[in-house]
C-alpha cells in the first residue's frame, strides 16, 4: 500500500512539472499533448470501469463524451449570444456550473441508453450501444443552431474563480487535478461495496442473482456512473480544445477509447491512462515523421496484442517482476 502511494505521488508530481519541463526544453506543445492524453485517459478509464470491472463492452461510449462536451459548447454558445437554451436555461461560461451540468446530462443520457441496452448482453450489447451512439451522432450533425457537422466554437475557456484560465499551464493543472481526482475516485469505487458487487457480476452474473442481487439495477448504476465520467472528460476536452464537434461522438472515437483501454490493460486502474498516453503520443509523434503514420501504429498495436497478455500494464508488471 505504502509503495503504491509513493508511486502515485511521484507520478502526480512529475505530471505537475510538465509545463516547466516543456518550457525549459522548448517543447511547449507537450503541455497540451499530455493534457489531452490525460483527458482521453479519463474517458478511457470511465469506459474501463464498465468494460474491465463490470464486463459490459460498450461500443458507444464516445456518445457520452460528446454529450458532455456539447453541454459546455451549447451553454457557452448561449452565453456568448445572450440567449437561452430552449428559451429556458441561460448560457454560462462558469466551469463550476458547466462541468456539473455536463456530468448530469451525460448521466441522464447514459441512464436512457443503459436502461434499454442492458436488457441484452454479449455482442448484442456491443451493437446496441453502438446503435444509440450513432443516433446521437446523427442528431448532433443535424443541429444547425449548434453548427451541425462543423461543430461549435467555444471562443474562451470556461472561467474558474481566481484562476487565469487563458494561461495554458493553469488550464493544464486544472485538468491534471481533475484527472488525479477522478483516478482516486475510481480507485475508491472499485474497492467499495458497489465496486465489489460489480466485479462479482462480471465474473458470474447468475451467481450474483442467486445471492439476491438485482444485477440489472447494479449494472445500470455502473453504466450511468461511467457515462458521467465520460461526460466530465468530454466537458474538459471542449474547454481544452475550445471546440465541440460531432467527431467527438463518432463511432471510431468509441473504438479509439476501447483501443486505449485494451492497449493499456483491461480492468486496471492505470491502464487506460497509460493506453491513452501511449496511443496519443505515438500517433502525434509518428505523424511528424511520416504521412503514413497509420502503418507503424497498426503494426505496433498488432505486436502488443500478439506478445502481451493484458496490455501494457501486464508488460509493466512483468518487467517490475511482480508476477
Amino acid at each position, binding site marked *: 500500500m505504502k509503495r503504491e502511494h509513493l508511486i502515485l505521488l511521484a507520478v502526480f508530481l512529475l505530471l505537475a512539472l510538465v509545463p516547466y519541463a516543456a518550457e525549459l526544453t522548448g517543447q511547449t506543445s507537450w503541455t497540451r499533448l499530455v493534457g489531452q492524453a490525460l483527458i482521453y485517459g479519463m474517458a478511457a478509464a470511465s469506459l474501463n470501469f464498465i468494460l474491465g470491472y463490470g464486463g459490459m463492452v460498450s461500443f458507444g461510449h464516445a456518445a457520452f463524451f460528446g454529450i458532455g462536451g456539447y453541454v459546455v459548447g451549447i451553454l457557452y454558445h448561449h452565453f456568448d449570444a445572450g440567449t437561452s437554451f430552449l428559451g429556458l436555461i441561460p448560457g454560462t461560461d462558469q466551469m463550476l456550473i458547466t462541468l456539473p451540468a455536463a456530468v448530469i446530462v451525460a448521466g441522464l443520457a447514459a441512464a436512457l441508453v443503459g436502461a434499454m441496452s442492458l436488457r441484452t448482453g454479449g*455482442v*448484442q450489447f456491443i*451493437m446496441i450501444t453502438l*446503435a444509440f451512439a450513432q443516433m446521437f451522432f446523427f442528431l448532433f450533425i*443535424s443541429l444547425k443552431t449548434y453548427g451541425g457537422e462543423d461543430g461549435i466554437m467555444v471562443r474562451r475557456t470556461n472561467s474558474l474563480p481566481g484562476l487565469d484560465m487563458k494561461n495554458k499551464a493553469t488550464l493544464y493543472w486544472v485538468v491534471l487535478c481533475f484527472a488525479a481526482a477522478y483516478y482516486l475516485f475510481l480507485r475508491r469505487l472499485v474497492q467499495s461495496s458497489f465496486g465489489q458487487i460489480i466485479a462479482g457480476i462480471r465474473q458470474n452474473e447468475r451467481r450474483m442473482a442467486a445471492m439476491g442481487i438485482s444485477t440489472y439495477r447494479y449494472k445500470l448504476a455502473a453504466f450511468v456512473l461511467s457515462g458521467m465520467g465520460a461526460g466530465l472528460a468530454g466537458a474538459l476536452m471542449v474547454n481544452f480544445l475550445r471546440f465541440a464537434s460531432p467527431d467527438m461522438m463518432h463511432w471510431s472515437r468509441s473504438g479509439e477509447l476501447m483501443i486505449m483501454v485494451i492497449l493499456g490493460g483491461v480492468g486496471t486502474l492505470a491502464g487506460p491512462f497509460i493506453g491513452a498516453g501511449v496511443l496519443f503520443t505515438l500517433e502525434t509523434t509518428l505523424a511528424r515523421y511520416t504521412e*503514413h503514420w497509420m*502503418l507503424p501504429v*497498426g503494426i505496433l498495436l498488432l505486436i502488443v496484442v500478439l506478445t502481451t497478455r493484458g496490455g501494457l500494464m501486464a508488460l509493466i508488471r512483468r518487467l517490475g517482476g511482480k508476477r
Partner: protein
Amino acid sequence: MILLFEQLLNGLQYGVTLFLLAAGLTLIFGIMGVINLAHGALYMVGAFAASWVAIQTGSFWGGLLSGLAASAIAGVAVELGVMRRLYARDHLDQVLATFALILIFNQSTVLIFGRQPLFTSVPDVFSGSVEILPGLPYPTYRLFVIAVGLAVALGLYLLINKTRVGMLVRAGATNRQMVRALGVNIQGLYTAVFALGALLAGLAGVMASPIVSVQVGMGDEIILATFVVVVIGGVGSVKGAFVAGIVLGMFDTMLRAFLPGLLQQVMPGPEAQALGVGVSSMGIYLMMALVLLVRPRGLFAARG
C-alpha cells in the same frame, strides 16, 4: 407504383451486397468466435484489386477473378498470421488486433495505389438498362448484382446443408467443442471458413466497384451496417444474414425514399426533409434496437 417497385429492387440490390458481407462475417463470428472488424478491409481489397486489374487489362472479368483471389489470399494471410494466435484469447484482444489490421490495410492500400479513387466501368454486356416494366428501365448491372447475390445465397445454402464441410460448419456454429470432439482438422476448417468469408467480402467489393467510388476506407463505412445485419440475423446464422440483409436493405431504401415525403404531409417541407433523412440514417440502428429488445439474440440465433 412503378417508383415503389423500383425502390424495392434497389433495396434488394443493397440487401444482397450486405448479405455477401454479412454471410462471411457471421460464419467467422459463429464458428471461431472472432469479432473481425477488418472484414471491411477485405471488401476494400477485393474492390481495389478488381479495379486495378480491370484498368490495366480492360477486362472486368479479369478484374473479378483477381479481386476474388486477392481477397481470399489476404483472408488466409490474416488467418494464418494473426487470427490463429487469438482464438483462445479474449474478444477484446481480437478487437484490438483487427483494428490494427484496418490501419495496416488502409495505409498499405494508400502506399500501393495512392490516394486517388479508382474507377472501373460496368462491363459492356451489362451496360445500359432493361425495361423490366413498362416505363421502368432498370440498370442491367444492378440486376446482375442481384442475380449474383441470390446465386451465392443458393450456393451457400447447398454448401451448408448438403455437404460434409457444411455439416461441420453448422455444427461449429452451434457447438464448437463438438466439432473438436469429432476429430476434425479444426485448423484447416478455420482457415477454410476464413478464406470463404474473405472471398465473399471480396466478391461484394468487386460487385460494388463499378457502382461506388473505390477509395481507401470504403470498407469502414459499410462494416457497421454489416455488423447490424449479423446481429439482427443472429450470430452464426447464414439464413439470418440473408433474411436480415434483404430486410435491412429494403427497409433502409424505403425509409430514405418515402419517409421525407410522408413527413411532408404533416409538417413543413424543409423540416420534414431534414427530419426524414435524419431518421432514415438512424433507421437501421432503430430497427436493430427494436429487434434486440424483442429477441435479444437476433432473429435466427444459431446458439441456444
